[in-house]
């Protein structure tokens, strides 16, 4: 259900008049510190409970991961990766969910007006009433997050608990975290917090610690502190995520060009009709049919 209280900044398949820009809200963000996550899955459960999602059966993958990937009924998943780094064993755990991009590929690709919206505070939400279940959002998303539900015929993903955020509460996953590796606040505040943590990690010998806030999608409203910031792929994160060029091309170039071509063709045939008129057989009588062209 989309929020009734938050102003919309941009909306899928809408050309103009998406938001008034009247109310200014700061961008909000989740803060995820992968270095202090213990993989307890409290956030997974809290997400399921708060959002009233159906039970999804867990799978034994031979690791500490609940299931292979996100699901239409499972919007928050701790990804687990076991690695040997410089002779030391490392358990990398990262909370995977919608990244709430500033420039959301799902919203760009979506053909249904208002099915995907971005609120003034940066949260990217879905509106099932408008969703037509085409699945194009999955093609547009560089993080492989939106999931189509065969049960509902709709797409589903993390809403950043917009229903909690709009009344001043933090998202359910943040609320449940026992180690304090999750925080929620304005994006500026979370970036400052992340900066401090990165400095701490560097002091502790993680020279490549960094904040993951990819600029290719205009930054995200979920920022992630990575102890091994030079290897986001170890955490299952793309090095430089981008909205697919094909989606941008189809929406920003092909669509206007196609409209020009179609309306141009209609104008062209009207022009031809006015300039040349209908081609009729010449009047009966001797003489080559060619003569009609000269009149």
């Amino acid at each position: 259900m989309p929020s009734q209280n938050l102003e919309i900044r941009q909306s899928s398949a809408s050309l103009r008049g998406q938001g008034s820009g009247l109310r200014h809200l700061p961008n909000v963000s989740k803060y995820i510190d992968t270095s202090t996550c213990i993989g307890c899955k409290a956030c997974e459960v809290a997400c399921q409970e708060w959002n009233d999602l159906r039970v999804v059966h867990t799978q034994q993958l031979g690791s500490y991961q609940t299931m292979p990937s996100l699901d239409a009924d499972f919007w928050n998943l701790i990804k687990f990766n076991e690695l040997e780094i410089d002779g030391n064993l490392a358990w990398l755990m990262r909370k995977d969910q919608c990244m709430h991009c500033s420039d959301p590929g799902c919203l760009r690709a979506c053909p249904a007006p208002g099915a995907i919206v971005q609120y003034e505070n940066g949260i990217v939400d879905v509106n099932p009433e408008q969703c037509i279940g085409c699945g194009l959002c999955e093609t547009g998303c560089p993080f492989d997050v939106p999931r189509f539900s065969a049960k509902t015929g709709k797409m589903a993903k993390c809403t950043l608990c917009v229903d909690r955020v709009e009344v001043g509460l933090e998202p359910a996953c943040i609320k449940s975290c026992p180690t304090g590796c999750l925080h929620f606040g304005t994006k500026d505040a979370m970036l400052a917090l992340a900066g401090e943590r990165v400095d701490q990690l560097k002091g502790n010998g993680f020279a490549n610690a960094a904040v993951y806030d990819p600029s290719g999608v205009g930054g995200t409203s979920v920022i992630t502190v990575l102890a091994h910031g030079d290897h986001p792929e170890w955490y299952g994160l793309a090095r430089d995520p981008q909205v697919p060029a094909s989606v941008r091309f189809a929406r920003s170039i092909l669509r206007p060009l196609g409209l020009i071509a179609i309306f141009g063709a209609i104008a062209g045939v009207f022009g031809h009709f006015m300039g040349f008129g209908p081609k009729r057989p010449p009047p009966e009588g001797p003489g080559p049919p060619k003569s009609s062209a000269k009149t």
Partner: protein
Amino acid sequence: MADLAPQIPAPGALHPLNEAMIRGRHTENVTVGEEIIRHRLLSRVIHWSVALFFFLALFTGLPIWTPIFGWMAHLFGGLAVCRWLHPWVGILFFAGSAAMFFHWVKEMKLQPNDRAWLGPKLWKYLSYAEEDPEVGKYNGGQKLFFFTVGLGALGVLLSGVVLWFPLSFSQLLRELSLVLHDVTFILFAVAVIAHIYLGTAAEPGTFESMTRGTVSKRWARLHHPRWYREVTGEESRRR
């Protein structure tokens, strides 16, 4: 003609047009009075089936393509209905196009001089500057349109299947299909606009060839001189 006495038709005699239409159920390329049967019933049924499915696919597809045509979705009960209906209509459209392709492909064999229609000849034709006396039942432009439709139907089908079941295909195929479906349909739409115009307003007498199936001899002599000579056995006025 010179007889001034009122002409009373014999009982059971038909108007030539009615006779032409009855014969046109099974035959084409024959003259009946002043008319020539151009498209027999089967050809016309195939053509209009393809046209019907094309427009259903167009009107269910355009609102998904751009919100500018969002109002079209209301004709079918909303965008979600369009998303459901569009692929099924598309399958019917492809089936019709495939039937049409095999129905007409023999007559559409490209002759060496047909390729010239891609060049300045097309403009000479459109500007009424030159009539080619060697144009048979179909001119080069019509043949090129025919093959454009065949290729286009295949293009929208292949990309459409991927878009229909996006989760069954790789990211690369999904992205390619998104672009291919748009490109094919845009070319299709432009070609069909020209096709409809040339078949109606631009060339009076042409539309009837697809409705009642007949054209006048004068029409045939102007637009398809060689076909006219073949069908009537007459010499066209020119040559």
